[in-house]
C-alpha cells in the first residue's frame, strides 16, 4: 500500500512537471494537476456556491444535467454564512475560500450582498482572496431566442483587479472629491496575455483592445502598450485598437465586427453588460473569472431574484452555460460540447422555455428537457 502510494507520488511528480514544463507559465495554469490522472472513475473536485434566492434551485439543475451527462465532478458545496467570519472579514467562510484554492475550479450562483457596514462585499472578497484577475464573458446569439441582434459572437475579457475600481477615493475639500484610477504594467500584461492565449486556444481570429488613450494618455496608454507587446508574440492573430466611444457605437450598429475584446476594468464592466444586453440579458450570459495558478471560478452574473425564489420558475441557463465554461477550462471538451448543444437545442426548439424567455415551463421541466436532449 505504501509502495503504491510512493510510486503514485513519483508518477504525479514526473507527469506534473512534464505537463507544466511544456507550456508557458500561464498556459500551464490551464491544466490542473488533478487532470493528470483523472479517469472516468476518479472525479474532479469542484467547489459549488449555490448562492441565495434562486441560487439553490439552479444549482440543483446544474447538478442534474451534469450527472445525466456523466461528468465526473464531485461537488463541494459551500453556503454563505449568516454571520461575518473574522478571518475573511466577510460572510464567506475561510473554509469556502480554502476549498476553491484547493480544488482550483468552482461554480458560483448569485449572491446577494447583505447591506451593512463592517464587512467586505462577497464579490470583492472572492476577487481579492483568489486573485481573480480576468473576467471572461462570451456573448453569442442563442439560435431560437430572437433579439434585435442575430449575429453576435464575441468574447469580452475584462481586467478585474484595478483600474477605476481600486476604491481609492477621498474628499479633498468640502464639495471636491477625487477618485484615483490605477493602471499597472503587471496587471495589464496579465490580462493581455490571457486574452491572446484564450483567442489562440479557442480559434479566434481577432483581438481588439478598447481604450480611451486619446484623453487618458498615460493610463490607457500603458494598457495599450502592454497589449501591443503581447500582440507581437501572436502574429497570426489580428490585433486592433478601438477607442471606447467608437466601440460602443459599432457594437450597437454591427456587433459582428468584433471577436475578442480586451479592456481595463470600467470599460469592461460597461461593454460586457452592453454585450449581454445584445443577446438577451444577464439571465442567459455565462461568465468565468480566472485567477492566478489556474484558478477558474465560473459564475452566473444575474441577481438572486428573491421574488421568484423557491417557486421553480427560475431560468438556469446562465449557470448551466457557466458550468460549460468551467468544463472547457478543465479540458473536458466532449462533455462540454454535449451539454452546450443540449441547451442550445432545447432553447431553439422553443417547447420548453422559462418565463423570462416568454414561455411557461418550470425550472425542473426545462432541466429535464435538456437532459433528454443529451
Amino acid at each position, binding site marked *: 500500500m505504501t509502495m503504491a502510494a510512493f510510486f503514485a507520488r513519483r508518477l504525479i511528480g514526473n507527469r506534473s512537471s512534464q505537463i507544466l514544463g511544456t507550456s508557458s507559465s500561464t498556459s500551464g495554469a490551464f491544466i490542473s494537476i488533478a487532470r493528470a490522472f483523472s479517469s472516468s472513475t476518479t472525479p474532479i473536485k469542484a467547489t459549488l456556491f449555490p448562492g441565495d434566492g434562486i441560487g439553490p434551485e439552479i444549482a440543483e439543475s446544474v447538478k442534474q444535467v451534469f450527472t445525466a451527462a456523466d461528468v465526473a465532478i464531485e461537488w463541494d458545496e459551500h453556503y454563505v454564512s449568516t454571520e461575518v467570519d473574522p478571518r475573511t472579514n466577510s460572510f464567506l467562510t475561510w473554509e469556502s475560500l480554502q476549498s476553491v484554492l484547493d480544488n482550483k475550479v468552482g461554480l458560483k450562483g448569485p449572491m446577494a450582498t447583505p447591506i451593512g457596514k463592517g464587512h467586505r462585499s462577497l464579490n470583492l472578497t472572492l476577487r481579492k482572496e483568489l486573485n481573480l484577475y480576468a473576467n471572461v464573458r462570451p456573448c453569442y446569439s442563442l439560435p431560437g431566442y430572437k433579439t434585435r441582434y442575430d449575429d453576435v459572437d464575441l468574447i469580452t475579457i475584462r481586467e478585474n483587479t484595478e483600474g*477605476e475600481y481600486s476604491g481609492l477615493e477621498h474628499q479633498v475639500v468640502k*464639495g471636491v472629491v477625487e477618485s484615483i484610477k490605477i493602471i499597472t504594467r503587471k496587471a495589464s500584461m496579465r490580462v493581455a496575455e490571457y486574452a491572446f492565449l484564450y483567442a489562440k486556444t479557442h480559434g479566434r481570429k481577432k483581438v481588439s483592445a478598447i481604450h480611451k488613450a486619446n*484623453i487618458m*494618455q498615460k493610463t490607457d496608454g500603458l494598457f495599450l502598450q502592454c497589449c501591443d507587446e503581447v500582440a507581437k508574440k501572436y502574429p497570426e492573430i489580428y490585433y486592433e485598437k478601438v477607442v471606447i466611444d467608437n466601440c460602443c457605437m459599432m457594437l450597437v450598429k454591427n456587433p459582428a465586427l468584433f471577436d475578442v475584446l480586451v479592456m481595463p476594468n470600467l470599460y469592461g464592466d460597461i461593454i*460586457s453588460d452592453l454585450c*449581454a444586453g445584445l443577446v438577451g440579458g444577464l439571465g442567459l450570459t455565462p461568465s468565468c473569472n480566472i485567477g492566478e495558478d489556474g484558478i477558474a471560478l465560473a459564475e452566473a452574473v444575474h441577481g438572486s431574484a428573491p421574488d421568484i425564489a423557491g417557486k421553480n420558475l427560475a431560468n438556469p441557463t446562465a449557470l448551466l452555460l457557466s458550468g460549460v465554461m468551467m468544463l472547457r477550462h478543465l479540458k473536458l471538451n466532449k462533455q462540454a460540447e454535449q451539454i452546450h448543444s443540449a441547451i442550445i437545442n432545447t432553447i431553439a426548439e422553443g417547447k420548453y422555455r422559462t418565463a423570462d424567455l416568454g414561455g411557461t415551463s418550470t425550472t425542473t421541466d426545462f432541466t429535464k428537457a435538456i437532459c433528454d436532449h443529451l
Partner: protein
Amino acid sequence: MSRRSLTLLKNLARNANGSGIQTRSVTYMPRPGDGAPRAVTLIPGDGIGPLVTNAVEQVMEAMHAPIFFEKYDVHGEMSRMPPEVMESIRKNKVCLKGGLKTPVGGGVSSLNVQLRKELDLFASLVNCFNLPGLPTRHENVDIVVIRENTEGEYAGLEHEVVPGVVESLKVITKFCSERIAKYAFEYAYLNNRKKVTAVHKANIMKLADGLFLESCREVAKKYPSITYNEIIVDNCCMQLVAKPEQFDVMVTPNLYGNLVANTAAGIAGGTGVMPGGNVGADHAVFEQGASAGNVGKDKIVLENKANPVALLLSSAMMLRHLQFPSFADRLETAVKKVIAEGKCRTKDLGGTSTTQQVVDAVIAKLD
C-alpha cells in the same frame, strides 16, 4: 354631402400618407433689428470636417439665412487653439465646428477638450432620435444626453508613480455637478420633457458619483413636475439596447456621457445623423452630436461620402439658439424630407450618394 366627405377623406389620406412632417406657421415676434446678419465662427477642422462644414455653408447661402461665417483653419496636431480663433468665438459667442482629430497617445492634449475648458462649455448635448424613413433596429427612440463637459475623468491629471504604475485622477466637484444638473432640468422644463435620468456608478465609486447624485437629487426637488430616477451605467447600456423608449433626458458625468451618447446615437441611426452641441454660460459651440468617428475615415474623405446630416441638424439647433426659428424649421424639415424619401443617402445610412448630392437634395427641398 358625399362630395364634401370625399374631399375630407382625401385630405386625411394625404396627411396620413405624407412624410409625417407637417409645416406649421410660425408666429415669432422679433425685436426690430433682429434680422441683422450675425457672425458665427466656423472651424472646418480635420478629416470630414471641411466637407460637412462646406455643406452647411451652401445650405445657409441657399436659405439666405442672416448668418455669415468667419472661417478659421485649425488642426488637431496644433498644441493650442490659436488666440485669434478664441478671440473670434468670444466676440461672436457662437461657433460651428467640424471634428478635430486628437492623436492617440501623442502627448498632445485634445483640442476639443481644451476648447471646452477654456470657454467653460460645461454642458454637452446630444439629441438621439429615430428619423422617419430611416430603418433601425430600435423604434421610438428620442433621447437627449446631457453630459458634464469639464471635469470627471477628463481632468487630464495623470502621472507615473513608479515605472509601470500610472495614476489618473477623476475629479468631481459639487459646483460642476450642480450646474449640469440644473442645466439638465432646465432643458427638460423648457423643452417639455417629462423625465430626467441620472447615470452613475455610485455603488463602486461611492464618494465621487455619490456627490454627483446628491447634486442631481437636490435640483430634482425644485422641479416636482419632472420625474427623476437614477440608473447604474452598466445597467443603463443594457437597457439602451433592449428598451430605449424608457429614456428621455439623461444627465451624466463626463466619461459615462461619452459612452451613453455614442450608444444612443448608434441605436438611433448612427453618428452621421445626430445633432448636438456644447453650451456654457456665455458661449455655444455646435458640432456633430456624438464624438465617435468625428473625423471619419480617410476613404470617406477622399470619396466625398461624408454624411452632412448631423452637422446640418446641429446648425438648425444653432439657428434656434440665435433666435431664428423659422430658418431652423425650414432646414430641419428639408433634411428630414430628404432622409424620409430615402433616395439620397450616404454610405453610413446604407446609400451611395456623395455629400454634395445630399446637399443638393436638401437645397432642392427647401421651401
